[in-house]
């Protein structure tokens, strides 16, 4: 058995030199032991290890070195033996570190996790106390880390408190920041740190007040804030009392008779929101209609929508264009035809010489029907019943706007106008007189965007442009200027 003495607990370089030589020499893990501290002055123990021969070396993955640097900070005395065992096995199993189901690897990963947790807890549980004022101001903490994570964690505090002079004292060593450089010193004692700080009373007040006694779960607390840390946390003094009083405080709240309402603030109370259901309001103008839509409960689509999206355009318009329903963008903004389909429509209108400002744009269904897929809302076609419920509003819009021509884009829009289902493919591209007025049926821009066949998309796009040109020509033929 060989014993290697390492100079310090976290002396990675010495371990690496020794381990490298041992492996080159062919010393099996079972025949070597690493211990920290020494019986004598030298680095190596009972048997000297031959000096490293520069022409013989080997490489190991960075993943192993990274893992080893973490594991070495663990307080387990056998950590260096475990690391040498891993280093040894890497000869035959170069991917070993990735096999986290392996017993040795699993143990090393577990130790690295403990170290990482100790470092995280240090970031959380260090408590600085103020010493001195002005130029003499110095922030000092006494902390006892679960593993040897001081040097690993100190740079975090240098980033966070770059403009404060601070020291963190621990039994393993001390870290000091002087506004410019981070230095490390010898182990310290608790007495070296200030024993109080006047702000701690405020902190304790906050800690006690933010606790809800009706939710007492002290085990959950201890899992995250283990008792071993309590002795250096000022707020931990309060825990026992908080737990002891919790039951009584909760019972008192639950059993207290309902109090008399406080009337002091009656005069300043905010107005109660108007929640009237406005399903059957008969609007006298578009503003009325817009307002009434907010309380529409004719079908359940309002529930998952942000808001109803009313039509937009002049109060009277010669042309009314009807789509299916608002999409994701329209639902958020409250304005119709601003999403991708709206862009297709804008382009086609421009080509046809129709100005958006002069046209009344609306939808057959006023709320956005969708399904949720993760973080996205996907359009879902409205049912015939939903379109029919919403005809109440579309009919009123038509009556108020009094268009000479209605362009219905897609089957939902056609049903919204006509009250029954028709085939867009069969009827599109010609203006027909209907009981509702002159009607031109065409594709919905979304059909042009979403059709899986690119040839069909091109064909539909052309047809759509032709149809809008037809609408423009129709309005021109009646002699008057648009709007």
């Amino acid at each position: 058995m060989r014993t290697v003495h390492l100079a310090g607990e976290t002396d990675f370089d010495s371990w690496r030199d020794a381990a490298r030589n041992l492996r080159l020499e062919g010393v099996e893990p079972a025949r070597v032991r690493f211990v920290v501290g020494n019986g004598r002055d030298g680095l190596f123990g009972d048997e000297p290890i031959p000096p490293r021969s520069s022409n013989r070396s080997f490489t190991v993955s960075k993943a192993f070195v990274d893992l080893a640097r973490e594991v070495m900070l663990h307080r387990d005395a056998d950590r260096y033996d475990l690391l040498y065992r891993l280093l040894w096995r890497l000869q035959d199993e170069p991917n070993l570190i990735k096999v986290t189901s392996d017993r040795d690897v699993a143990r090393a990963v577990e130790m690295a996790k403990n170290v990482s947790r100790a470092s995280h807890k240090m970031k959380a549980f260090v408590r600085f106390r103020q010493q001195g004022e002005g130029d003499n101001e110095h922030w000092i903490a006494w902390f006892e880390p679960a593993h040897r994570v001081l040097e690993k964690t100190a740079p975090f505090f240098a980033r966070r408190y770059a403009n404060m002079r601070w020291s963190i004292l621990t039994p393993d060593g001390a870290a000091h920041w002087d506004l410019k450089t981070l230095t490390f010193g010898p182990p310290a004692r608790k007495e070296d740190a200030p024993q109080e700080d006047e702000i701690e009373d405020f902190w304790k007040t906050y800690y006690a007040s933010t606790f809800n006694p009706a939710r007492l779960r002290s085990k959950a607390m201890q899992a995250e804030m283990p008792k071993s840390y309590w002795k250096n946390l000022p707020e931990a003094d309060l825990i026992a009392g908080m737990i002891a009083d919790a039951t009584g405080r909760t019972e008192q709240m639950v059993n207290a008779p309902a109090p008399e309402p406080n009337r002091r603030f009656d005069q300043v109370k905010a107005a109660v929101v108007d929640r009237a259901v406005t399903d059957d309001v008969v609007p006298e103008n578009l503003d009325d209609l817009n307002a009434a839509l907010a309380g529409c409960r004719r079908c359940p689509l309002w529930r998952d929508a942000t808001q109803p999206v009313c039509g937009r355009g002049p109060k009277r318009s010669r042309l009314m264009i009807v789509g299916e329903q608002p999409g994701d963008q329209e639902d958020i903004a409250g304005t119709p035809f601003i999403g991708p389909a709206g862009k297709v429509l804008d382009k086609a209108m421009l080509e046809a010489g129709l100005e958006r400002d002069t046209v009344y744009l609306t939808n057959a269904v006023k709320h956005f029907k969708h399904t949720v897929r993760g973080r996205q809302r996907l359009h879902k076609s409205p049912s015939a019943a939903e379109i029919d419920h919403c005809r109440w509003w579309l009919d009123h819009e038509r009556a108020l706007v009094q268009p000479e021509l209605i362009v219905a884009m897609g089957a939902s829009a056609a049903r919204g106008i006509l009250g029954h289902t028709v085939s867009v493919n069969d009827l599109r591209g010609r203006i027909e007189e209907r009981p509702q007025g002159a009607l031109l049926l065409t594709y919905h821009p979304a059909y042009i965007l979403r059709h899986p066949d690119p040839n069909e998309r091109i064909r539909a796009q052309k047809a759509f442009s032709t149809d809008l040109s037809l609408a423009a020509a129709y309005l021109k033929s009646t002699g008057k200027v648009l709007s």
Partner: protein
Amino acid sequence: MARIDLRRKLSVLADAAKYDASCASSGAKKRDSRGGTGVGSTEGMGICHAYTPDGRCVSLLKILLTNFCIYDCAYCINRSSSNVERARFSVDEVVDLTLSFYKRNYIEGLFLSSGIIRSSDYTMEQLVEVARKLREEHDFRGYIHLKLIPEADQRLIELAGLYADRLSANIELPRDEALGRLAPEKDARVIRKAMGQVRLKMEEAKPGKRDRIKPPSFAPGGQSTQLIVGADGAPDTEILDRSSSLYGGYGLRRVYYSAFSPIPDSSAILPVSRPPLMREHRLYQADWLMRFYGFTAPEIAEGAEGGMLDLAIDPKLAWALKKREVYPVDVNTAQREDLLRVPGLGVKAIDRIISVRRYRTLRLEDVARLTRSIDKVRPWITALDWSPGGLTDAIDLRARLVPEKQPQQLSLF
């Protein structure tokens, strides 16, 4: 009114803020105090600086600017008709407390909310002013979470997003109708519109690939909301539908669930009882399934009974017990999305399984070393040396997996 001392104020206004479950300090952009004049850093992951005996994390100084309020929401300790002690911080008091706490490493930053005083705009202005002072006058680079007053002016919401890492507006009640009964001055439609505005602003703040000049930052930590569980009679499935719709519609980072808890001076129309903590826990699990495991709200509902999640078992197991035909899943060949459906396997364990199986064919003991509890996993998987045989379809599988002792409603009583 007599002036009360600062510690008393802190006590009143922390107590008034504690029913808001959110305390996250994650999601902010990486930054630190080097090259500046103040303190503070955010490195992506949040830090919990303490835990109170309710098991909750203390990450931020979570306080109200004031608990005076012109709203009368029955579930809220600060409603105008409540007899609680009232207090109000000045802007400077909040700034000083935040910095004093931060310098001692008690907190990651500030979570500031407020009762509505005078008007929504006035209240929001005050909140924004605290954030502005911290950022501009003290070069504070820690975390700031501001509560959004939904009715407030657009301009104020923009400023809030400029200074804050995260914004939140609380929906509170899953059912819009219940808001009318319990919070007559609140309007769910206005809250949703405000969330929609925040989403649009966040999208605008994302620099395009060709942008030379970055657009101004807007709440890089995203927005969140809270739903109170057990106050309005909404069943779990309805709550999850609401969450799903919020995640999808407004890009929320988190939905928090808050078991309706006893408050001092509770309202006569909403009597208090012990908080449904186990229900809250199951809802959080279901929420994780939606966010990280590819479950949809309707799928989770398939594992529920009468709209309520099973309190005795987690929602993934509940789903699996009803969908046994999709099991067992072979850990050596299955796709990630199928592994995500295995009860007892978490995202991290699955990542490891996928990584290890490139080098080794997994045996049951290997899986055991990669996961917390192999007993939960065993009926649902096959491995090199393991097949569950009839176990997956055993009639008494639920009984075998459910702990003997029924979990108690986590509570004192």
